[in-house]
C-alpha cells in the first residue's frame, strides 16, 4: 500500500508546532523522522506537508524550544537532529493543556448539538 492512496486530514493551523514538540519528547530525531513519526502515530490520518515542516523547525529553533546539531542516523547517514530544550518542554506542557481544553470545549459543543 502506498501513502498517496488514502485521503488524509490536513493539519490545523498552529498544531504542527505542538506535534513536533510532542514527537521530540521521545528523544532526538531528524526532520524526516519527525514527519514519519507524526504520520505513523496518527495511524496515517494526518498529512504533514514535508515542505512546511522545515520552516516550522527553524521557527521553533529560533524561539529556543528545540536545538539542533548534525549527527549520524541509524542507517549511517548524516542528518540534522533536533532535540527538545527545557524551555521547549515547558512550552509543550502549556500547549498540550491549551489543546486539551480546546478540543474538550469543541467536543462538548458538538455533542450538545447532537443531543
Amino acid at each position, binding site marked *: 500500500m*502506498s*501513502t*498517496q492512496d488514502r485521503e488524509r486530514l490536513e493539519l490545523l493551523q498552529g498544531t504542527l508546532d505542538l506535534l513536533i514538540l510532542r514527537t521530540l519528547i521521545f528523544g532526538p530525531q*531528524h*526532520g*524526516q*523522522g519527525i514527519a*514519519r513519526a507524526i504520520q505513523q502515530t496518527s495511524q496515517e490520518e494526518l498529512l504533514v*506537508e*514535508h*515542505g*512546511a515542516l*522545515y*520552516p516550522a523547525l*527553524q521557527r521553533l*529553533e*529560533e524561539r529556543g524550544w528545540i536545538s539542533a546539531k548534525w549527527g549520524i*542516523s541509524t*542507517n549511517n*547517514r*548524516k*542528518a*540534522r537532529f533536533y532535540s527538545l530544550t527545557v524551555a521547549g518542554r515547558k512550552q509543550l506542557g502549556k500547549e498540550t493543556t491549551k489543546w486539551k481544553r480546546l478540543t474538550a470545549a469543541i467536543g462538548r459543543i458538538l455533542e450538545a448539538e447532537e443531543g
Partner: protein
Amino acid sequence: MFRRNRKTSDFGAEIEAHFNFETERLREEGLSEEDARAAARRTFGNVTQVKERFYESKRWLWWDHLWQDVRFGLRMLTKSPGFTSVAVLALALGIGANTAMFSVIEAVLLRPLSYSNADQLVSVVSMWQRGGVTTPFSCSPPDFFDWRDQNRSFSSMFAFHTSERALTGRGDAKRVRLVVATADIFSALEAHPIVGREFAAEENRKGADHVAILGYSFWQAEFGGLPDAVGKTIELDSEPYKIIGVMPRDFRFPLRGSDAYVPIGFDDKVMTQRGAHYLRVLGRLKPGVSVAQADQDLTAIMAELRRLYPDKDGKWGVHAERWSRALVGDIRPALLVLLGAVGLVALIACANVCNLLLARATVRQRELAMRRALGAGRFRIVRQILTESLMLAISAGAASLLLAYWALQAIVYFGPKDIPRLANVGLNTAVLTFTLGVSVASALLFALIPALRSSRMEIGGLLKMSGSSTREAGRARNVLLVGEVALSMMLLAGAGLLVRSFAGLRSVSPGFDPEGLLTLDVSVPEAHYKNSLALEGYWDRALSNLGGLPGVTSVDAVTPLPLSGDDWSSSFSVEGRNIPEKDQPSAELRWATPNYLRTLGIPLRKGRTFTDADRLGAARVLLISETAARMFFPAGDAIGQKVNFGARGGYEKNEGEIVGVVGDVRHFGLDAPIAPTFYVPLSQAGIDGATLVIRGQASPAALGQPARKRVQEIDRDALVGQPVMFETLLGDSLGQRRFYMMLLGAFAALALVLAAVGLYGVISYSVAQRTQEIGIRVAMGAARSKVLSMVMKNGLGLVLLGLAAGQGMALVLHRTIEGLLVGVSPTDAPTLLVAAAVLLLVAILACFVPAWRASRMDPLVALRFE
C-alpha cells in the same frame, strides 16, 4: 533579538538529507528508485519556495522592516512639520557646535604633523631652575652638542633658530624668513631637496656657511621655479649665499614654513658659550624608544653636565616632549575644556529633543498601542522609535555641517594667529565621521527614554490612555528640563567667568600708553655697519629723517619692543658683590633711545632718564625698573650701583652706572608677570636692529607707509617691516583669551537658547494638556491673573530647581577652567549670581508666553477641546 546564524547551504543540506531518507523509505515499500524520488518531492511541496522562505527569514525580512520603518517614520515626521523642524534645528545647533569645535581639535591637536614619522620628533628644551620655579628655555650650543653626542635614544638631533634677514641686491630690501640650522636638519626631518643637495657637515663651520637651500614658494617667487637657480647667489643682509638646493612644495619648517634655510656656522669659540641659550632643539627617536626614556636619558646626561660645568650649567636641567605636544602646550587643555563645554550643549539639545519626543509619545500612545494590539512586538515598536530618531539626528547632522562651515570661517577669521594650524581647519573625513558618530549617539541618547517607556506600556492601559503613564511621562520631562537648566546655568556662569577675567585683563595697565603709537621694525645689514659708531650714525639719521616727516611729533627706537614676543635676558654682576657665576641674578635687557620712556609714558620714579648726552664715548649709564630695583637692591640703593651684563646683543658691553628708576612694563602681555628689567642707551650698545616707535599728530596709521619709505631711503639694504599700530599688538597679546572667551560665550548663548526653547515647549505642552482644566477654572470664575501665575509658578519652580543644581555643578566643575582665568576665582559669587539672574529672566520670558496664552483662553473653546 538573539538569532542563530545559520547558513543557507546548511539548510539545503538538511533538505537533501530529508529526500534521501524519504526515497529510501519509499523504496523499501517497493517503489522504483525513480518513482520513490518523485513521490518524495511531491510530498515535500515546493522546494525552492521553502528555501526562499528560509532566506527571507534571515535577511530580507530585516531589510523590509527597516524600509517600512523608514517610510513610516518619514510619514510621521512630515505629518508634524513643527515638531520635526524644532527637533532638527535644536539638534543641528548642538551637533554643529560640536562639529566646529571638533574640527578645531582635529586640526590643532589630532592631525599628525606633516613630516614623515612625525611621531618620532621630540622637542628638547633646557629647563632653567631659579627660586623653586623651572622655566623652559632655549638651549646653548655646547649643551646641544653634548646631548647629541652622548644620548642613546635619538637617531638624529639638530638645533636651529629662526630669524629674519633682508634679501638685498635686488632693489629695496625684502624680508626673508630664515631657518638657521645645524647641517643635519633635513636628514633628521626625513625631507630632501627636489633640486640640488643638502648641507654638508663641514658647512656647519663659520666661513663655509654661506650656502642656502630655498623654500619652494620663495624659489617660485624669486626664480620663477627655474632649476638653474641652484648655483646662483643671493644676498642676505648684503652677504652672498650660494644656492645649493630647493625643498619640495609641501615641505614647511617650522610649521608656517620658511623662505630659506642656511647652516648655523659655529665658530671655534662655540664650545665656550655654554651660557648662551638661543637654540631650539629637535630630535628623532630611535624606533621603539619612548619619549619618557629619551627624557631620562637626557636628564642623566644633564646631571653629568651640571657636575662638570657648575658655573654655566649649575642651574639648568633638560626636558624632552613629543614635538606635536610641545607645540600646543597650554592650548591643549584650553581646547579640551571647550570640547567638554560644547559636549554639554549637545546634551542640552538631546534633552530638548527627548522632551519633544516624550510629549509626542503621549499623543502617539494610541497609535503605538494599536500597533501592539495588531501584533507588533515590543522590539518592533522600539525599533520604530529608534529609526525615527536616527532619521531626525542624521538630518540634523547634515544641517549641522552647514552651521559648522560658517562657524569655521568665523573661527579662522577671528581666531588668534598664535594657535598653530588653526587656519587649517576643515570639514574632512575625520570631522565627518565625528559628526556622524555624534548624530547617532545623540539619537540613541534622546530616544532611549521614549523607547523604553513605549516598550513597557501595557496595551490595555494604553488604549484607555491611563493617567498614570502620562503622569510618569510628565515626571521624566520635568527631570530633563531641570537638567537642561542646570547645564545651561553652568555654561553661562563659565562664560561669565571668562568675560570677567578678560575684562579684568583689559583694564590692567601695560605700564605704558600704546594709544596712537605706530611701530616699525628695522634691521640693518651687519656688513654695512662694522662698528658701533656706524650704527649710532644710522639710528641718528633714522630718527632725524623721520622727525622731519610732516605729522610726526616724536620718533624713538627700542628693542625688544614690549608685547612683540621678543625678549632678551641675561645674567649680570654688580660691582662690589662677589657672586659666583652660576648664582648670578638675571634680568631683562632693553635698549632704547633717550626719549623712548617719555614717548611711551613710562614714568620716572627716581634719579634721571637718558639724555641726548648718553652717547657712545660718554659715561655708560643704565636705568632700572621698579621691580628690578626692589628685587636686586632691596635697601633702596639702586642708583649709583655699577652693573655689568657683558657683551650680548650688540658690539658693546652692556654695563654702566644706574642713574634712574623707572616704572614697570608688562613686556610679555597683560596676563604675564612683570619681569625685572634694565634699560641701556641704544647708541651706547651698537645695536643693528630695533623698532621705531612713532607718535603722530592726527591719524598715525596714515603715517605708516611714508615713514617706511623714509627709512628705506637711508639704506636700501636695511630691512624695514610693515607698520603696525601698538594697540594691535596689545590686542593680539590677549588673542587666545579672547578666542576662548568668544567660543565659550557662543556655547553658553546656544545653551541659553536651547534651554529657553525647551522650557517654552514643556510649558506650552502642559498648558495644552490642561486646556480643559484651565477652561473649567476660568468658567468657574478664576481670575485670569490667577491662571497666569499658576502656570508661571509651575514652570519657574522647575527653573529654580535647575538653577540650584547648576550652581552646585558650577562650584565643582568650574575647577576645570581655572587655568583660563586670571584674577577671578572659579567660584566667583557675583558671576554665578549674574548668570543665574540672566537665565531666570530668559526663563520668565519663555514661561510667560504660554502662561499668558492660557490666561486668555476662551472657556467655551477650552471646554469643547477634544
